[in-house]
């Protein structure tokens, strides 16, 4: 809660660096980052300069524990070109062991100069916790690289290929005088050529391909009539983009560059001077946005999207302070510009919720009074059942955010926190740096723009599951209520009337299975990520078994919640991947999946299962997974990895409370 602007003096944050030196005279990097992020525009350049100087001296002094998180915190999408280059140099000067995270191998095949773009992508991926090895093909050679089996591309063996191309790389441009049939034929031929490139690269590499669509040029031949004439360049390019969106196979991710160009403004984006000078795809300063977008998509495909939006209430969801102003005094009504601004933000948030972003409230307020706004105010767009977790109390927000992550059973690093109060933002950034806290203004309409710019909830793919997610979290809260009232756990499980459908990965559930493979962190034994292309390859490989499980109960359908990938080697079935969504923990589903695996293995004449546990910072939950299921230990490595075996002779299925649906 914030009293009217008392704690915020615009312009009070001056360029002079805050006094954050410790006893040894060293600057506190986190404090300097905060100072830079909250600087008013006229002070930003100076704040960046002093920050950069301190970053450099921290690097020289080897204070990487402090430097790496501070550097990540500064790598937001609103940097300018020259600053991002300076940060890229700093990033590249870190010793390799400081930048390791999950590594990916990325090939950038450019139809234009990709040098700066790939540098920026690398640095933004580092900010997202992904390190990458990059192969950059020579300018303009993307077709040859893919078609020639002896090219460097295939030597490099990437797991991601980024086709950095634009409309200048199109093969068949129509003439204005061409008739509609001729234009349609050209477009078909054009699509076919690109589809062939994807197919060849995919067949040879089993990799996911990120393909740019085409940014419509900022000029027209026909003025206002351009959009009505199929042979006009802008119309032709837009048509191709639609074709890409509709027809590209699952192993191709389309990067919507055209949308980015439109967001920025086509004329500013398409500054041709830099294409003529250096074959750059857009005005250089927008390479920052370009790279941020690309890396947010790749990060999303690696499960790095955030999951939950946590909202403050007073002056964030409505104008004013409910505790002081009362239901009639807060500004959140139709007919008042400020109130409608807050409603516009609520509408935006509600749409995020509809596609699977979990919503939570974290507010310093009396809970009863705060809830009343959702229950009783007639104009509120957000209702209580949109909010998966409502936390209004007088505790500090950092503790409340930790509690929210714990209760929702998601990582603290999957939270985004929006609060109009700069003091609360600063303290949350300091105490729980894992939570993303965008620097917002006091205008709710700008909240939307700022959240959009950061793409915290970037979507790699979208399935039916996503539309139901917030319902899962709400019904889970209902299940928790019953659990606490049931006399014992067996009674509780029996009362759920659970039914599971267990079967292989199919073309119908491939997207969802891949999404789980790339998102699950906690109940995940080996945390091996795979693109849909790679999963598809396993589906077609007779030595591999793929298993998925879907669970429903009397509260609703939980959807597809578990995936196992296993490989038969000799007379063992080796479990490469076993993961499960945490929303069905402790229901006995893993036991049912094990029973199924054993049946499959016996059918194939195998005599044992083998599994391994590879520890990460997030999967401690399943450290004892295999021994709990009756596996015996066959090895333990110093790095914490353990191996397990389950002989199949004389094994009896484990009893669970889950009924099997007819197998799919």
């Amino acid at each position, binding site marked *: 809660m914030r009293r009217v602007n008392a704690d915020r003096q615009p312009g009070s944050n001056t360029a002079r660096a805050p006094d954050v030196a410790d006893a040894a005279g060293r600057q506190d990097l986190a404090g300097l980052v905060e100072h830079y992020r909250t600087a008013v525009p006229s002070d930003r350049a100076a704040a960046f300069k002093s920050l950069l*100087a301190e970053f450099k001296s921290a690097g020289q002094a080897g204070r990487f524990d402090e430097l790496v998180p501070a550097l990540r915190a500064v790598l937001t999408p609103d940097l300018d070109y*020259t600053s991002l*280059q*300076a940060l890229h*140099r700093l990033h590249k000067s870190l010793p390799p062991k400081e930048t390791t995270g999950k590594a990916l191998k990325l090939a950038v095949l450019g139809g234009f100069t990709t040098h700066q773009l790939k540098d920026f992508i690398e640095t933004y991926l580092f900010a997202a916790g992904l390190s990458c090895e990059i192969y950059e093909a020579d300018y303009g050679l993307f077709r040859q690289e893919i078609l020639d089996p002896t090219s460097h591309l295939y030597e490099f063996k990437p797991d991601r290929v980024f086709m950095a191309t634009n409309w200048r790389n199109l093969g068949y441009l129509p003439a204005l005088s061409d008739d509609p049939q001729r234009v349609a034929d050209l477009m078909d031929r054009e699509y076919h050529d690109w589809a062939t490139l994807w197919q060849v690269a995919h067949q040879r590499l089993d990799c996911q391909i990120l393909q740019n669509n085409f940014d419509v040029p900022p000029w027209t031949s026909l003025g206002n009539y351009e959009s009505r004439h199929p042979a006009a360049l802008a119309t032709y390019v837009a048509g191709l983009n639609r074709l890409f969106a509709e027809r590209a196979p699952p192993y191709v991710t389309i990067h919507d560059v055209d949308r980015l160009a439109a967001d920025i403004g086509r004329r500013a984006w398409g500054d041709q001077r830099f294409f003529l*000078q*250096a074959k750059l795809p857009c005005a*250089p300063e927008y390479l920052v946005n370009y790279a941020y977008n690309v890396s947010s998509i790749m990060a999303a495909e690696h499960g790095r999207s955030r999951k939950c939006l946590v909202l403050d209430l007073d002056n964030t969801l409505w104008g004013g302070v409910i505790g002081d102003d009362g239901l009639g005094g807060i500004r959140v009504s139709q007919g008042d510009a400020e109130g409608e601004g807050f409603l516009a933000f609520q509408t935006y948030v509600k749409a995020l919720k509809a596609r699977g972003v979990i919503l939570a409230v974290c507010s310093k307020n009396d809970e009863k009074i705060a809830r009343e706004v959702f229950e009783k105010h007639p104009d509120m767009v957000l209702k209580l059942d949109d909010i998966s977790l409502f936390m209004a109390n007088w505790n500090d927000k950092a503790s409340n955010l930790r509690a929210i992550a714990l209760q929702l059973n998601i990582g603290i690093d999957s939270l985004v926190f929006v609060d109009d109060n700069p003091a609360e933002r600063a303290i949350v950034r300091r105490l729980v740096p894992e939570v993303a806290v965008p620097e917002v203004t006091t205008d709710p309409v700008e909240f939307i723009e700022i959240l959009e710019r950061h793409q915290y909830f970037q979507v790699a793919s979208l399935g039916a599951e996503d539309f139901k997610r917030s319902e899962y979290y709400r019904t889970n809260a209902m299940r928790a209520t019953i659990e606490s009232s049931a006399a014992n756990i067996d009674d509780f499980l029996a009362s759920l009337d659970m039914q599971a459908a267990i079967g292989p990965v199919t073309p119908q559930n491939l997207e969802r299975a891949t999404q789980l493979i790339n998102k699950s962190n906690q109940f995940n034994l080996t945390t091996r990520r795979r693109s849909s292309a790679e999963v598809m390859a396993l589906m077609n490989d007779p030595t591999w078994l793929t298993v998925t499980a879907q669970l429903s109960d009397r509260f609703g359908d939980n959807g597809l919640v578990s995936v196992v990938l296993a490989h038969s080697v000799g007379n063992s079935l080796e479990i490469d991947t076993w993961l499960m969504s945490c929303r069905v923990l402790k229901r006995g589903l893993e036991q049912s999946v094990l029973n199924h695996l054993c049946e499959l293995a016996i059918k194939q004449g195998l005599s044992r299962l083998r599994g391994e546990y590879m520890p990460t910072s997030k999967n401690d939950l399943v450290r004892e997974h295999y021994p709990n299921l009756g596996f015996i230990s066959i090895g333990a490595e110093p790095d914490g990895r353990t191996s397990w075996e389950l002989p199949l002779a004389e094994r009896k299925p484990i009893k669970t409370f889950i009924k099997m649906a007819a197998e799919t």
Partner: protein
Amino acid sequence: MSEQLDRLQDVFRDVFGDPSIVLSPSTTADAIDGWDSLAHINLIIAVEKRFGVKFATAEISRLKEEGANVGSLLQVLSGKLQPTK
């Protein structure tokens, strides 16, 4: 002129990440470590932003030709800044 040289020097230091760069009108690309055609683009963007000017395509080319130096850059710059002063 010397005030603009100072501002330009600041831009060079940021772009090349080297706070020890000292410019004079006779400084050429060879004298500055890393001033290649790629860095030239980086420099042009940073100068445009800092001075609020826009270079023509031909000017960008001319400024990296043989014989061009910081003095030529200053000359083009002051041509652009003059009318508004």
